[in-house]
Structure formats: structure tokens, C-alpha cells
């Protein structure tokens, strides 16, 4: 099928402002949007710049705005994107992070927020000789938030983050949740203190954009609500 792409281009080395590149490529209906972008890069214009690696939705490199929604380019089929965009697929970089070039944004502010929530297991007890025990129910408690691939689709879909980049954002809260509700972890108090600060969970207005954006299907708003509740009650129910 013929696929039409409208791609937001911007190379600060030579462009004064962003512009739209329009391309037409031949693709199979079940090709991914990433395949179409590759076609442009490899056979039409080698200057088109994007990140990608695994190409099947696990590495999190190619989060971008496709038809106005944050998604992984390797996880959207051109057939669906063409239908949704009524004959043209619009591709833009993630919002809310500085654009380095074309579809590549500066991820450093995102990872800086991630690091704030102490995203690692904290347990100062001397470890047992074998594994720490954890029941399947305890393991299930935080399963959903272990799926996060740090692609930033959620955080950069959040109007609160657009309004203020200091907001720690849904991805960092998801990462905090993954440890706060892990029965082996002892760092909940410190993490909840961080998330209770002015840039923390209270900036979430339960808009649900993050849930829609997450390519891993994580129920992010629920995780954020559970963190809010833990701060309010002081209990990890």
C-alpha cells in the first residue's frame, strides 16, 4: 500500500525552526511505522534522524508522537496509523523535552527525574544465604510496574509535565511504586517523602493520558493513586 508520512523535521545545525517533511513510501499493511520511517531514511533522505533499536516494543528507544498520540513506532502498524490519520501518518518528537534533531529528544531531564526516586532495592539487612522469600501474592503486588521500559511515552504525554518540567512525572512514580510495594524493600519512607514534595505526586491531575500512552499496558494512574494513598495513610495497603 502507499503510505503518506508527515514528519516534523528540525536540525538546529541548519534550521531556524521546525518544518514538515512529506514523504510517500510503498509498504506492506502489516509493516510498522518504524519500517516506513526506515524506508524514508534509507532510500529517500538519510538525514532523517530517529532512535530505534530492538524494533519490537521492548527497548523503548522509539517513543514518539504518532498522529498526536505517544507510541512506539515499532508497535504501530502502518495500516492502523493510516486509517487513524485518514490517509496520512503524522510523526513528531515527544513533547516536553528539548529536541536534539528531528525525532530525537534530550532524555536527560527524564532520567534525572527517574534517579530522584531511589530506583533500586533498599534493604540493609544482611542477605540470607539463599534467595529472600516472597510469596506469589507479594510478588504480584508490584508486578504491573515492573514492566516499565523507561520509554518516556507516559511522562511526555502528561499536561502537568508539559506545564512544568520539574514535575517528576508518571514514569518516575511508576518506578517508585515498583519498589514501594515490593515486600523485600525498606526504602518506602524515603521515596514517599520525595514524592510528597512540591514536584511529586500531587501534580498528577488524573488525566489518564499516561495510561493511554503506555506501550506496556501499565495502569499508571492506579499506581499513582496507590502512592498518593500510601502518603496520606502512611500505610502500604
Amino acid at each position: 500500500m502507499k503510505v503518506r508520512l508527515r514528519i516534523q523535521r528540525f536540525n538546529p545545525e541548519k534550521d531556524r525552526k521546525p518544518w514538515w517533511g512529506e514523504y510517500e513510501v510503498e509498504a506492506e499493511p502489516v509493516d510498522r511505522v518504524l519500517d516506513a520511517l526506515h524506508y524514508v531514511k534509507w532510500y529517500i533522505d538519510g538525514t532523517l534522524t530517529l532512535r530505534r533499536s530492538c524494533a519490537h516494543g521492548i527497548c523503548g528507544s522509539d517513543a514518539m508522537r504518532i498522529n498526536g498520540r505517544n507510541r512506539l513506532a515499532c508497535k504501530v502498524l502502518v495500516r492502523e496509523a493510516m486509517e487513524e490519520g485518514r490517509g496520512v501518518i503524522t510523526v513528531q518528537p515527544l513533547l516536553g523535552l528539548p529536541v536534539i534533531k528531528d525525532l530525537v529528544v534530550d532524555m536527560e531531564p527524564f532520567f534525572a527525574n527517574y534517579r530522584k526516586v531511589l530506583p533500586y532495592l533498599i534493604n540493609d539487612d544482611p542477605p540470607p544465604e539463599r534467595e529472600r522469600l516472597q510469596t506469589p501474592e507479594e510478588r504480584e503486588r508490584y508486578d504491573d510496574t515492573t514492566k516499565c521500559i523507561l520509554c518516556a511515552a507516559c511522562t511526555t504525554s502528561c499536561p502537568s509535565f508539559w506545564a512544568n518540567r520539574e514535575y517528576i512525572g508518571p514514569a518516575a512514580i511508576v518506578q517508585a511504586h515498583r519498589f514501594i510495594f515490593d515486600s523485600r524493600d525498606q526504602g518506602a519512607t524515603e521515596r514517599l517523602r520525595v514524592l510528597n514534595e512540591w514536584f511529586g505526586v500531587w501534580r498528577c491531575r488524573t488525566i489518564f493520558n499516561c495510561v493511554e500512552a503506555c506501550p506496556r499496558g501499565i495502569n499508571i494512574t492506579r499506581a499513582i493513586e496507590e502512592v498518593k494513598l500510601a502518603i496520606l495513610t502512611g500505610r502500604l495497603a
Partner: protein
Amino acid sequence: MNVHRHPFDAVVVGAGGAGLMAALYASKHVKTAVLSKLYPTRSHTGTAQGGIAAPLGNMEEDRPEWYAYDTVKGGDWLVDQDAAELMAYESIEVIIELEHMGLPFDRTPDGKIAQRRFGGHTRNFGEAPVMRSCHSADRTGHMILQTLYQQCIKQNVIFFDEFFVTDLILEDGTVRGVVAIEIATGDIHVFHSKAVLFATGGAGRIYKVTSNAHSLTGDGMAIVWRKGLPLEDMEFFQFHPTGIYKLGILLSEAARGEGAVLINDKGERFMERYAPTLKDLASRDVISRAIYMEIREGRGIGGKDYVYLDFRPETINRFKSAPGGMEVTAEYLERKLPDIIEFVRVYLGIDPMREPVPIQPTAHYAMGGIPTDVDGRAIRDEHNTPVPGLYAAGEVACVSVHGANRLGTNSLVDLVVFGRRAGRHMAEYCRQADFAPLPPEPEAFTVEMVERIRNGTGKERAPILRNELQDTMQTHVSVFREASGLETAIDKIRELQERYRHIRIDDKGYRFNTDLLEAIELGFLLDVAEATAFSALNRTESRGAHYREDYPKRDDDNWLKHTLIWRQDGKVTFAYKPVVITKWPPKERKY
């Protein structure tokens, strides 16, 4: 072009499982930098699905010697048995260490790490499948990568994200550091160091249909080879039996561990004929060949070049192929294999709980690589002489614990066991060694290469050359090989190398120039393909993943040895290293 210099005791190149594990250990003792051309969490370790082996015995009796034996047999007796035994024993403490770091393994009802069956892993030296693979649903690699990265954050490991390493600084046989391009700016960085550890992963992108990420272009292998150092056992490349048809996306062996079966056009469970004991859980090389035999004999689905992986609950229950013949439900399978079920739904638009899934073998894993000892030290010859300061771990390395064919789960075990050992040894080395001085203009090679490509005015295009390479390798250097095809491939690679000198790119800028990076990566791919094709032509026997139709038998009298391949002045040379045999003399391999 701006050039920057940084002194570090140790430099780790690559931030997947092996690189991060090495970095955790090295950085405790010496000043260590981790360079990755990606953000660390994008590394390909994250896509590993089914599990990581360790004979914990949490589900049923298991022993390290059974595991070591399975690894040796899986590798068709080309495995160094001292290394396999060491890996089998150390796997237990490393898995426990990962758990202590917070890795969210699935759990047994009594709270221990849950384990499942995997191809080639058996009880009592081949009797029956054993539950040895520790897992976290079918996203075990994701959990390993995240957990190791989390620990690196905790330990303040120094990262240089999106730094693309192009060259090793090696003078008088001693490591002096590496040269890298900072992708965001195009600036050149010279890292002056006492030691360098390559953990850059594999080179699956030499093939057309592969499970490997676009980033897996054999960088570390090619960089070391260009320095006149050898690569080991490059003829052994694993094709995983169950890639999604045409796309190559992996569907984990864990599916078959949970009872899925391979089905041909006649509806037969054909692995019963090829591997009567382990059937669909035989080793990967055996199953990939069996699939192609079925296709050749006209039993591909609709006579085409694929077969079905069937993991509908009714199929598994009909064959009683789940562990212990237990009944499974769709709900159970969705919990055990959520990601691969989703892949099938997204990319094929079919529901694997209701329909069988079209699959074909997909290029998956390089058993060969930079030769190392069990401490990750790279060696320079068949006498195991180390290169002072040079280390390698993970898929880029060849210890060799995988021999001629790697067992499922063993790549992850390799990463953490040998990543840890290499990191420790490198720290020890750095504490004793002095900085060897940098040569004048250590960045010269990289600057020249970058400018040549950037200013190239020829008519050749990197994506076209890459496609031709991938087609050639797929046709002539895949599951079945023979001399004339391999010679054709070599001629083609030579032709492509010549045309590569005349490439032109569109992007003439410095900032985030992925046009340039892909062109440099193509150069690496061509070199790795050259080493692979020459090694395959040279080995006139069939063993593990290397199957020669003109030499269909394993030949222990002449070929129970590792290949080392060098390139000097455009010509390749070979030498051989004996296989270390401690307990298990070679015997016929049957599953």
C-alpha cells in the same frame, strides 16, 4: 572536529548485562567509565525472554554437573568443559546475588524462585527435561537489565550514554584506551585507560531475518579484529527455531517449555521423529534443521517456507506436552507468556490462544567472538597468551561455554557469571598496572574514517550494501552450508568491501548523525561477515549450528578444536586451540 580526553582506570564498552555486571564489580575498586551507543536500558539483554538457568533445585532435584553436562552436549562437545563446570556452579550464587539486588523473579508457592523447563536442559545426563530456568514471566532479560542498571545508579557508576566506540587504542600489544564519537555532538572523545572491556553483544544484523536489534552490528568483534587480534569459532551462529515468520521476532523457547509444539502441514508433531526423547525441547540447532528438512520435503504450511508453533491450550492438552502432562488453560499461558502472546497479536494480528503461529528460524546468537579465558581476559593466540588490559564478556566474547551451539538461557548465565569475573579481574589488573602512554594522535584513525565517509562522493549507499550483505549471508551462510555457496558469499563480501570504500551519505552534519553511524556500523558488519564466512568454509565437518551438506558428519579426529581466525594485509589465516575436556569425552549427540 572537537577532541576531548578523559583518563579512567577502566573503560567498559556496552551496557547490557555483561557490561553492567562488569561495571558494578570494577567500579567498586577503580575509576570506571561505561560507554554505550544507546541508553543502557535499551540494550538487547532486555529482550531476553524465557529465563536464566541455575540448578537451584527449587522445583525438583537438580545438580550443577547435570547442567554442565547439558551445556557440553548442547555445544556438541566443542565447549571448554572447565569453563562450563565453572559456569554451572557459579550460576547458583549469581542468581542468588541477582535476587538480592531486587530482581523480581516469579515465585513458587513457598516463596522461592520459580523455575521452568527449557530446551536441552535435562535431569541425570539427558533422561528427561528438568525445571532449571529461573524466570520472570517471559521478560526475564528486561528484569535483569533493569535490576543491574538500578544497582549502577545506586552505586553511582559513571555512564557516557550514546557514545559510539569506533576504535581500540592498542600499542605494542598493550591497551591504552578507546576512541568514541559523542553522538549528540559528533565530538571525538579519547578515553585513556589501563584496561578496556568489550561487552558490545552480537552481530545478528549480518543476516536478513534476525531476532537481533538494529544496533547489533558486531562492533566489538570488528574493532578487535581490525587490530590484528583473532576471533574464535565464528562459524558457529545460532538460528533460533521460533522467530515470527518474516519478521524474525523471537518467540521464546519458554513456550515449548510450557508445552507448545511444532506442527507441519500434515498436522504432525514432527519433532517426535527427529528427537524422540526431548522432542520440541531438543537443542536449537537440531530443531532449526528439522524445520528446514520439513520445508524441503514439502511439509511447510501450504508448501511454503514456514511451520506452526502451536500453543493453543487444546493442542498442549491433546499432546499432554506441558510439564508432567498437566492440563493448561489460556489464562495460565497468558500469565506465563504475556509478552510473546502480545507480540503475535500485535505483529501478526492473530490470537495464539485460538490459532497456531507461523514461524521460521531466525538468526539469533553468535557462539563465537573475541577469545577469552574464564576471567574475561582476551587472548591473542592458540597458546592462550593474554593481551594486557583487554577484556571481553557476554555475546561478544567466546570463553567458550557455548561451543558449537548455545543452550537456551545460557546467554544470560554467561553475561552475569563472566561479566562479574571479568569486572573483578579487570579491577585487580588496574590496581597493579600503570597507565601506558597514549600514542600521538590516538584519534587519527577515527577522524580519518569519519571525514572520509562524511565527504564521500561515490555512488554507493550503505543501506543497499547492507541489504545485499544480509541477503547473501541468509542464503549461503545460514542453517545449511556447502563449499560453493560459502565461496559465493566470500566473493560477494569482498565485492561489498570494495564498494564500501565508495559510499556517500546524505547527512554531512555533526549533530546526532545516525546516517554516519549506520555507515560505520556497516563496516563492522562486513568484517564480522567475512570472519564468519571464511571460518565456515574452513571447517569441513558438521557440528552443532555449523552444518555442512558436503561434510554432514561430525569429525572429532580432525575438528575437535576451536578455530582462531586473523586478518592481516587483507588475507585471513587460521590457527587452532584444543577443546578442554575434563569429564565427558565426546560421544554421539542424540535428544
